[in-house]
């Protein structure tokens, strides 16, 4: 078996670089997501800052070799502090012609193009719509093409194992990964460890993957095709303990942490939907935290079961994406009327309708704000980065239980599937979540109000003397009895609105990145944080009067927002929708907010925001 001996490596030149963006692309069955994830984890452990963008089709296996079947994984790793997966890949690994065709337009000019030449046969070229072989017609001359018979090399490396051709071929992604590890001077150990644990029960496949990985590494080391390899040093991250985490994992951990800190069991009810299902998978693995997960028969059952659990004193939670929220709307109204704490996690995707299930978008903000019958306010929070998902998931429950209200948690596919290093918080340093169930029957009424928060008491079944009835019909102030009285209805509508407005007294003020006044203020929310902040940083370095704020609380908005907005001549709101926050800001603050809008199922590039700012400044 070929062994990597770090002492006896060939003497190829090392070049130090600051930042690299690689995109792995292949058929959806080629294991590109896994390859990318492994490369990411290894780079994170090595101490680089990282940011990732998985991009895959909604079909599990679209026809092999076809353009719709291409799956990609982009990873940006750096010795600097980075916030996005990178605008343009510096390196593209294309496992077949379709992957090349789909991804080449994004590769930077002069970028490295690593190609599996074995897959560039007539049939695959035809499926990808190439009339001539791009490896032979000079059309790739603007790039540094490294054409490798990867399929054959991989099969040769594994031939002694006696695996079937198909099974052996499935290891070729690890051959490619091994090459990339050599090229960017990464250790094999983290992936070897992963292979060991993953294929424990299948020693032959285990061995095959290890051999493929090592063979790829050694091939890159010895072949004349690579003359140089690169080093990306550790990033200068804040001191602390880190792990690499995806947004959806961080979301699940944030909810678990909220349950632990609140000392109330979490009840997660969900119907499988892309891209939210990972939260269900993750939470169902941690039942030893007293978590109950309920895979409901539909979206409506998921939210109503969560509401039932919340009525019974658990932390009721449901997770979904936009189409699921549409189905849950009536029940969210019920939670508003019954004033029960429930969190609705919406991992947004491209819409409307079924839309683009695996692509990202931020077009459900107004749905969360207004998508219900009647005057039906709910709180809204949104994480800024994959790691921030932990904080905001936690925050969603802090607000829900403190104010007895449904809270929307608006993540998106980009945040949920993307990953970055997460500075692990100390559990003892998390914010408090105080839950005090009402137990005293003396003077109890179900719709009594806390003076500061206007929250009603949480009186759970099993408490003697507090038997009461709630429901979707309008409630009489204090007594909670059904009331159709005109004055009472208006009073209650205003009271529910006031309760949500008061949350602003219990959330942080917004902080300005840059000078507190000037020409342009960029206002971002959700996953656009990285691209916007990086773009603003570039503008500031160019000496331009540009500042930014990022909103993690969308309803209510931070109490100092109006004042901050008033200090700038122009307000720019970049969003992955047609101007939803823009609309809210214009309505609320009467400011002439300008939109920068993109709805391509993809996040902003830094350069796109910079270009708009240059135009405005």
């Amino acid at each position, binding site marked *: 078996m070929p062994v990597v001996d770090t002492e006896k490596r060939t003497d190829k030149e090392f070049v130090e670089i600051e930042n690299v963006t690689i995109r792995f692309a292949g058929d959806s069955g080629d294991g590109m997501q896994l390859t990318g994830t492994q490369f990411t984890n290894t780079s994170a452990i090595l101490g680089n800052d990282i940011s990732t963008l998985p991009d895959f089709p909604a079909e599990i296996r679209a026809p092999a070799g076809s353009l719709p079947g291409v799956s990609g994984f982009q990873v940006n790793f750096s010795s600097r502090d980075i916030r996005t997966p990178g605008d343009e890949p510096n390196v593209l690994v294309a496992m077949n012609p379709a992957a090349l065709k789909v991804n080449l337009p994004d590769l930077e000019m002069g970028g490295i193009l690593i190609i599996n030449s074995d897959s560039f046969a007539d049939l695959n070229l035809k499926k990808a719509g190439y009339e001539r072989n791009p490896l032979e017609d000079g059309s790739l001359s603007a790039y540094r093409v490294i054409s490798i018979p990867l399929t054959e090399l991989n099969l040769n490396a594994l031939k002694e194992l006696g695996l079937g051709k198909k099974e052996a071929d499935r290891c070729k992604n690890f051959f490619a990964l091994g090459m990339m590890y050599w090229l960017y001077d990464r250790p094999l150990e983290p992936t070897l460890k992963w292979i060991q644990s993953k294929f424990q029960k299948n020693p032959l496949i285990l061995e095959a993957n290890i051999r493929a990985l090592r063979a790829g590494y050694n091939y890159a080391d010895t072949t004349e095709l690579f003359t140089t390899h690169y080093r990306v040093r550790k990033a200068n991250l804040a001191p602390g303990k880190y792990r690499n985490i995806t947004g959806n994992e961080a979301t699940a951990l944030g909810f*678990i942490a909220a349950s632990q800190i609140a000392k109330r069991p979490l009840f997660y009810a969900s119907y499988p939907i892309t891209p939210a299902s990972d939260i269900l998978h993750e939470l169902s693995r*941690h*039942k030893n935290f007293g978590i109950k997960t309920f895979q409901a028969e539909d979206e409506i059952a998921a939210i109503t079961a969560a509401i039932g659990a919340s009525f019974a004193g658990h932390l009721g939670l449901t997770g979904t994406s936009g189409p699921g929220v549409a189905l849950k709307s009536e029940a969210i109204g019920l939670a508003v009327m019954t004033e029960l704490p429930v969190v609705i996690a919406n991992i947004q995707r491209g819409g409307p309708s079924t839309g683009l299930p695996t692509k990202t978008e931020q077009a459900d903000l107004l749905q969360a704000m207004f998508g219900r019958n009647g005057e039906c306010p709910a709180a809204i929070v949104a994480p800024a980065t994959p790691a921030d998902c932990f904080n905001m998931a936690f925050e969603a429950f802090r607000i829900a239980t403190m104010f007895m209200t449904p809270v929307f948690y608006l993540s998106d596919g980009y945040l949920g599937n993307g990953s970055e290093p997460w500075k692990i918080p100390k559990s003892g340093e998390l914010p408090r979540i105080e839950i005090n169930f009402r137990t005293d029957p003396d003077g109890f009424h179900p719709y009594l109000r806390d003076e500061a928060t206007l929250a009603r008491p949480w009186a759970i079944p099993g408490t003697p003397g*507090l*038997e009461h009835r709630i429901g979707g019909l309008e409630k009489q102030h204090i007594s909670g009895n059904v009331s159709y009285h005109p004055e009472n209805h208006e009073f209650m509508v205003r009271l529910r609105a006031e309760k949500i407005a008061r949350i602003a007294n219990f959330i942080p003020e917004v902080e300005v990145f840059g000078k507190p006044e000037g020409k342009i203020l960029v206002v971002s929310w959700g996953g656009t944080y990285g691209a916007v902040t990086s773009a603003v940083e570039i503008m500031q370095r160019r000496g331009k009067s540009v500042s930014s704020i990022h909103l993690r609380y969308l309803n209510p908005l931070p109490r100092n927002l109006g004042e901050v907005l008033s200090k700038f001549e122009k307000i720019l709101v970049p969003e992955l929708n047609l101007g939803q926050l823009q609309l809210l800001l214009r309505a609320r603050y009467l400011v002439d907010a300008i939109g920068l809008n993109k709805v391509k199922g993809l996040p902003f590039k830094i350069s796109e925001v910079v270009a708009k700012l240059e135009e405005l400044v």
Partner: protein
Amino acid sequence: MSDNGHTKGKAAGLVDLKRQDFVTDQEVRWCPGCGDYSILAQTQKTLPDLKIPRENFVFVSGIGCSSRFPYYVNTYGFHSIHGRAPAVATGVKAARPELSVWVITGDGDALSIGGNHFMHAVRRNLDVNIVLFNNRIYGLTKGQYSPTSEFGKKTKSTPQGSIDYPINPLCIALANEATFVARSIDVDVKHLNAVLTQAAHHKGVSFVEVFQNCNIFNDGAFKHFTEREHREDRTINLEHGKPMIFGKDRNKGIRLNGLKLEVVTLGGSITEADLLVHDVHASEPNLAYMLARMDYPEFPVPVGVFRAVAKPTYDELMEAQVQDSISRMGPGNLEKLLNSGDTWVVE
């Protein structure tokens, strides 16, 4: 009949409650003469006998006349949204298995808008009592036909007669392998009380269909077999371990002939030994399904308990998985969880 010694939410100590303890201060707002009054009264009468502390009862309902029920029962109550009561109840019961959870629903609520939730609560064998008030009409919306209305029924929304074939609620419950299935009639208060009591004692999902007269929009819907003078001839009360005999003179019975049921008259060559003996514990629901399909005039309308079998419940299985995880992995440790996976330290 079935009682596997289980009563949901039962307290260790003595609980001495009276019917009056389950009456709220809210004025009951059903139409005078509505069958709902009888079901409310019988439920309030049944509850004290269960010896469960009042605070451990939760009544969950959807939307419709019947769904106002929780406002009139002095326990914890949740008047939810249309059709979703079984799902709300799933959340309550799965979170807190020690509670006695009741779902109050109607034919439109459970079988039309909420058909999906009804079906899934039943097939999961969630340990709740589902009482379906079947009046074969939409009352609260003032008289449209319902999924249990007979074919051809003329209502405000079907002036030429309904072209929907009706659903049989018992068959839906049995098709989803309900572990307890029963039927009673609003006007037969003793029978209703007995059925509700058995339903409450059953561990697992208990489904009770109650024929309930809507005297405003569908008056007399069940009159042809519920009127005193016909009741014994036109209904049959299914009793566990007893031959299926009915009729004022107790001379008619149900016999299985090949794959079909038939009504026979006792006498001559036909004796009790030829009749079916009711077995609520039969593991296969097939015979219960055939019985549930019996209808007047070909057959007497069956009432009583059709099926009562034991099966682990959803809420206890869910709780068991939590306990199993704790014993395998130890109680959750947040610090450990946050620090799991590959970590590294930046100095």
